[in-house]
């Protein structure tokens, strides 16, 4: 009996031949894109429509959302970000049915509505590398619609600084007989560097407009409050300095931006230069420019790029990963792996924290997704190399046999007690619990599980959860820094004072921090314009952040 072992390759050849009728070599005119997609995509296909929290294959998304649903339907979308209106239109129009994704920031509310209305069959919400891992296991794309800055006629792609997810998507698709279609801003004779080899790319379309990139990691120093500065001071003195944290990742909130802007001022006063925060897995945060310029930072690897930072990074190749062509090379999979295995600390904000320290960004009616935080903010049990910070955290949490002690990652949540409109950030029960019930999820969405969290920082103080030995201690430690929220006011005052005497809770005064010093004068840059000045004019701030 003859067995066909090449069904996938045969299928690929058939689709390529059909598609090549609309191409000149690999090049396809933009007006032929719709018919090309209707030809190379089949109902039920798994599709990766490239888009994350930064760059977007926006042209291909628009065109895919406009195909004839009687020809193309029941697609299974497997992609990092549900970010554009077109991504939701795919489901509204019946082109796609099933979804596995990671991040949905701006479309969080619309996504929740579509799920409630039964328009989307949700597989799971993943972390980035978890979804990438599944590209190589059970969610391999049949067709990848990707985005790059430039292509040559052989299909070699130059992504520019925003390489991000592209190599991972293409690896999974091209080597499993899938089809790769790229939108590019320009066709050139020779690309500055080859980010994706041409033999992995089947069709290339030049678009009228350059692809969209969201400046997600730009925080205007003008919006940083004194309480955020106070929290940043506590974090630097009470955590970075105490553990000697050199290798780390920062989230995108204002408190971590404040930390970045205090390194060259407050950090310098404490004599910490060279002792903390030297190696980073970090997007190119403009707010880190003063620390870089002051010689604090040895090296940064990035998940993606950031609007306006290209020239600055090109001119700082000792710090950033830069190709021989002179532009940044980012890579989300590599950087997430660095964050998981080679960082001693993750510090970031969230939207809600419960009494066990679980956190969530899924608040009433919003499915924000996870992105990279659950990966950055988790203790990697496969880690085997020691560092002083990792061992100290391990010692604090370990009561067992000292000979066989393991280390711990520092996972720090830095979050004020109240959010917008006096909504408490510390709660008895996460909103995501009710949401999971309503939407019949098998798993309650949790951003970072409480047992991975080592510290919580609020304006009231630091709670060290590593040192807690019982769930009751843990609960009082969290209540003890939850300020005047209901959770905070429900504290057992005696228990909290006992935790304070043991150093589990530390107030600013316990750390020798003067509240008067928590002033905006302490920020190394107090505006976007200051950041431009620090960069010697190399940072080109996006227009929405310019007010001069």
């Amino acid at each position, binding site marked *: 009996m003859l067995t066909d072992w090449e069904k996938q390759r045969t299928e690929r050849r058939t689709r390529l031949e059909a598609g090549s009728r609309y191409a000149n070599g690999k090049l396809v005119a933009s007006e032929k894109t719709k018919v090309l997609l209707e030809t190379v995509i089949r109902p039920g296909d798994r599709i990766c429509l490239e888009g994350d929290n930064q760059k977007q294959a926006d042209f291909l998304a628009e065109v895919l959302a406009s195909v004839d649903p009687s020809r193309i339907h029941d697609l299974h979308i497997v992609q990092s970000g549900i970010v554009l209106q077109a991504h939701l239109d795919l489901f509204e129009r019946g082109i796609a049915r099933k979804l596995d994704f990671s991040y949905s920031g701006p479309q969080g509310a619309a996504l929740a509505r579509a799920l409630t209305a039964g328009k989307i069959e949700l597989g799971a919400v993943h972390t980035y590398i978890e979804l990438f891992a599944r590209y190589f296991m059970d969610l391999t794309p049949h067709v990848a619609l990707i985005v790059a800055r430039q292509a040559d006629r052989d299909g070699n792609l130059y992504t520019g600084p925003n390489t991000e997810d592209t190599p991972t998507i293409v690896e999974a698709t091209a080597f499993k007989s899938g089809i790769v279609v790229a939108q590019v801003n320009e066709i050139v004779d020779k690309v500055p560097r080859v980010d994706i080899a041409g033999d992995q790319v089947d069709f290339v379309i030049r678009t009228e407009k350059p692809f969209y990139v969201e400046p997600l990691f730009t925080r205007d120093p003008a919006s940083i409050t004194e309480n955020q500065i106070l929290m940043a001071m506590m974090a630097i003195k009470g955590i970075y300095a105490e553990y000697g944290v050199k290798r780390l990742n920062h989230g995108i909130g204002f408190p971590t931006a404040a930390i970045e802007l205090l390194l060259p001022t407050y950090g310098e006063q404490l004599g910490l230069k060279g002792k903390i925060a030297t190696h980073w897995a970090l997007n190119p945060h403009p707010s880190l420019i003063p620390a870089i310029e002051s010689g604090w930072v040895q090296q940064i690897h990035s998940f993606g790029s950031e609007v306006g930072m290209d020239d600055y990074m090109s001119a700082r190749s000792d710090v950033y990963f830069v190709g021989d062509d002179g532009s940044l090379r980012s890579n989300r999979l590599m950087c997430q792996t660095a964050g998981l295995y080679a960082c001693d600390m993750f510090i970031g904000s969230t939207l809600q924290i419960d009494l066990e320290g679980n956190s969530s960004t899924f608040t009433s009616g919003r499915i924000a997704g996870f992105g990279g935080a659950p990966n950055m903010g988790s203790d990697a049990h496969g880690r085997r190399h020691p560092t002083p910070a990792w061992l100290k955290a391990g010692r604090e949490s370990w009561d067992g046999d000292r000979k066989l002690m393991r280390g711990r990652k520092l996972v720090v949540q830095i979050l004020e007690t*109240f959010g917008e409109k*006096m909504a408490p950030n510390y709660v008895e029960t996460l909103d995501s619990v009710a949401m999971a019930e309503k939407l019949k999820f098998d798993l309650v969405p949790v951003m970072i599980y409480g047992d991975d969290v080592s510290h919580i920082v609020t304006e*009231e103080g630091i709670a060290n959860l590593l040192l807690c030995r019982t769930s009751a201690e843990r609960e009082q430690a969290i209540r003890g820094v939850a*300020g005047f929220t209901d959770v905070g*006011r429900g504290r057992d005052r005696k228990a909290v004072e006992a935790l304070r005497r043991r150093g589990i809770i530390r107030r600013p005064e316990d750390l020798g921090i003067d509240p008067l010093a928590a002033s905006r004068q302490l920020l190394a840059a107090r505006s976007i314009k200051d950041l431009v000045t620090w960069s010697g004019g190399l940072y080109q701030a996006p227009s929405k952040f310019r007010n001069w």
Partner: protein
Amino acid sequence: MEQFQVRGTTERRAGGNRDRAVIGVNASGNLEVLVERVLPDSECLVDVATAVTGFGRIWEAVIQEFLERTSPGGLKFSINDGGARPDTVTLRLLQSVRLMEDEA
């Protein structure tokens, strides 16, 4: 507009020799605190004028905790509030006591 007072007894005189200090601004989400050393050492008083009504219980809790934390004997605090969150109120009050300790 809502106005109220919280009085406290204190264990000791607030530090420093300044008679008067002002910190903060009466802007949206912020507050201005005027501190005056005008009371006996065993007393303190917080006068609140706030643009936002209905948070009396939280104000009281914030002020009580502040008085316990700092024991600002002899000081009268006049707050002009533009709808600041409790954490901002606490920070400003702590800053105002520290300011009274600074050399004028």
